[in-house]
């Protein structure tokens, strides 16, 4: 298992190099110049000389291959460079937002897990009864309602009923857990609903499939209690595809909550992503892509390792 994990971790290196090379050159094809946006985007009366000076200061006048070499050398040393917009280290810009984005993703995952497993299981066990229909309506709602719209409804409802809104500036959970949760629980609910719907449907269909397997029939024939058949034999297997989906959803939530973050005025990675793209801040975009790629790689690895926990037939490293 340890050897397998190490091998997988080593494989992340070429993956990340590939991502870095792709994102570096693809971004250079996009039209637009951060210096022009910065100095002239709001109608600034700035001479070409000043623009050229600023390009030089930011190192944008150097040949592309030199810029690339610098960037890759920085990456090798764990240095993601400096944002060309704020002129602060990329890692600093990302870390400020990562805590919030991670927390929303974790809260949404907890919410989705706690709700989706009982919902999906109930729908499968009571297939084609009113329970199943109710679960299907709830999950179809979750899939079809955009998270940001649901977020807006949550906000407007809070305003209308309680004349109250969640805080709009972030307080770390270790400083004030109440203020922290009162801000982040709502976006977590908004995105968690969709997350929960996807997972519940996956669990339902997977559990239906597993319940029709021979070993389940054997267990029942042996007289095993139905609760044990479902929880110990069926559900563990049925959870495997759901875990994959949950892993991917979690990674998506780190950087993909653009509109939801805007609705709740959250200072997260998604908003930063959109801002840096609209400003052509290549260094920041590159840094974020690398960090998010890392998350995907690590979460995929974690999901693969979890398979072995849920399914005893799976053994790595043999």
């Amino acid at each position, binding site marked *: 298992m340890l050897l397998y994990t190490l091998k997988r971790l080593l494989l992340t290196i070429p993956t990340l190099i590939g991502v870095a090379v792709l994102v570096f050159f693809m971004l250079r094809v*996009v*039209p*637009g*110049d*951060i210096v*022009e*946006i*910065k*100095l*002239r*985007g*709001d*109608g*600034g*009366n*700035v*001479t*070409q000389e*000043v623009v050229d*000076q*600023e390009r030089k*200061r930011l190192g944008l006048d150097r040949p592309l291959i030199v810029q690339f070499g610098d960037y890759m050398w920085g990456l090798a040393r764990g240095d993601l460079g400096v944002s060309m*917009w*704020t*002129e*602060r280290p990329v890692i600093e*810009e990302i870390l*400020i*937002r990562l805590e919030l984005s991670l927390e929303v993703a974790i809260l949404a995952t907890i919410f989705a897990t706690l709700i989706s497993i009982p919902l999906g299981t109930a729908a499968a066990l009571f297939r084609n009864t009113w329970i199943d229909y109710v679960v299907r309506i709830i999950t179809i709602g979750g899939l079809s309602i955009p998270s940001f719209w649901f977020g*807006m409804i949550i*906000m*407007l409802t*809070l*305003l209308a009923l309680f*004349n*109250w*809104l969640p*805080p*709009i*500036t*972030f307080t770390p959970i270790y400083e004030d857990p109440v203020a922290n949760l009162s801000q982040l629980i709502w976006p977590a609910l908004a995105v968690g609903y969709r997350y929960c719907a996807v997972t519940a449907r996956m669990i339902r269909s997977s559990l239906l499939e597993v319940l029709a397997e021979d070993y389940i029939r054997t267990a029942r024939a042996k007289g095993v209690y139905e609760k044990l058949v479902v929880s110990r034999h069926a559900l563990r297997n049925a959870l495997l595809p759901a875990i994959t989906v949950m892993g991917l959803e979690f990674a998506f939530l780190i950087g993909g909550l653009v509109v939801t973050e*805007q*609705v*709740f*005025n959250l*200072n997260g990675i998604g*908003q*930063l992503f959109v*801002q840096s*793209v*609209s*400003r*052509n801040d290549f260094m920041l975009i590159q840094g974020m892509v690398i960090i998010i790629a890392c998350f995907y790689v690590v979460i995929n690895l974690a999901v693969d390792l979890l398979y072995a926990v849920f399914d005893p037939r799976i053994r790595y490293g043999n």
Partner: protein
Amino acid sequence: MKRLLLGLVGAAVLSLAAAPQAEAQQPKRGGHFNFAISAETPQYDPHGSDTYATLHFSSPFYSTLLRYNLSKFPEIEGDLAKSWTVSPDKLTYTFTLHDGVKFHDGTPFTSEDIKATYDRLRNPAQGVVSNRRATFADIASIETPNPTTVVFKLSKANSSMLDHFASPWNTVYSAKDLASDPNFPRTKVNGTGPFTFVEHVKGSHVAGKRNDSYFKKGLPYLDSYRGIFTLQAAAMLNALQGGQVLAEFRGVSPADRDRMVAAMGDKLRVEESSWTLNLLVLFNTEKPPFNDVRVRKALLMAIDRWGGSQGLSKISTLRAVGGVVRPGSPLATPEAELVKLPGFSKDIKAARAEARKLLKEAGQEKLKFVLWNRNLAMPYTPAGIFLVDQWRQIGVEVEHKQSDTGPYIAAMRSGNYEVAIDFSNLFNDDPTLSLTKYLSASKNPLNLARYDDAEIDKLYELQLRETDLQKRRAHIMALEKRLFDQAYQQPLLWWHRIVLSHKTVMGWKMSPSHNLGQDLAEVWLNQ
């Protein structure tokens, strides 16, 4: 519902009318004020910026030499300057400075700080960005005969110089800080303003607390404040309604105003003013057929600005019809004169007939082109849709291309466009600032229409040097006529500013520019 809405709007307008009485109340000291800033500045230095985001962030920490008296706009008053004199030949400006002023780090403020600040503005060191270099090109020397006197000597008379000195962008820095690092103000704050810097949490907020050593006795009233970045209008409006922020000082759309009036009723204060911003229609004069003045003129003449103003003002921040100077301001062209200029006729039927004739003469009866526009909902999108419809009415087919700022600017700069919607971002009504946009492209990076016109340059220079108001007005009107006759570019409509705040917020003054009056020194909370 409509009646209710109208009633509430009425109530809000009435409350606005009653505002001066409320303002007369005795200010209360103390309290914490949260307000929204709808953009975040990339750096802290107003010298190298043109976005209000920098001013709404930095103004509370700094002072300027002069400033606008917003109760009597565009009257100018002293800020760090206690008084000033201008020599009869308008070549020497002598300022007497307040005594006993200190920077936030305790360093005494002297005339040397003014000199260092203005030297940085007019002649920045290598690696320092000053967007006001051209503005202060007429300053020949700056002398500091004693710590409370500073003398500016000009090489030529400049009718806009006092307005330049009152610009909110010319924040005064410590000579000591600039000597240690000319780029100090980009990332650090040390001013003489009413508030001291507490923190900037990137993407979240900027916070300040009262400067107890502020040189204006009794000010500021607030203990502390937090400017919270709310990049989306919907989030800002929700926060305003929920009371997490008590004001947003840039401006909102009429639809947002109506929603908030309906939701908050008499808790909300609505203040409105014309705005020193406009959108322009711009032609790439190097690209056929827009190198033909007849085509450009036809397209401008087909626009029904007067009718459009009525419709667009209901759904967007666009409202006033005007020429190159903000309508209603002292040097603006009166309406009776404006309607005689191409593109401003009130007889739109006749204007469009003339436009069709001009297109026919130019052989462009079936003209098709792409209109470039910025991908910003308010007010760029409605303006673009409006123009497409106006030109359709003279048989011209237009594709409306909205693009993010990066590709938009790239297209404008490279000349890879035919027709575009551009904008003017001004902070006052002084014509020099607004007319700079129209100078020949060879000497002016702001000119995206890519023309050179010696007559416009000459008229610009004449108005700049003219100290007699009537003669100056004549030069400005001549320049405007030349510009519109040649139809290089033309203001479409001027913006209308609507600012929303809770009625508990007192002491803030409305003005035609969102760049002015943001030091928060006189803001107090009535609660």
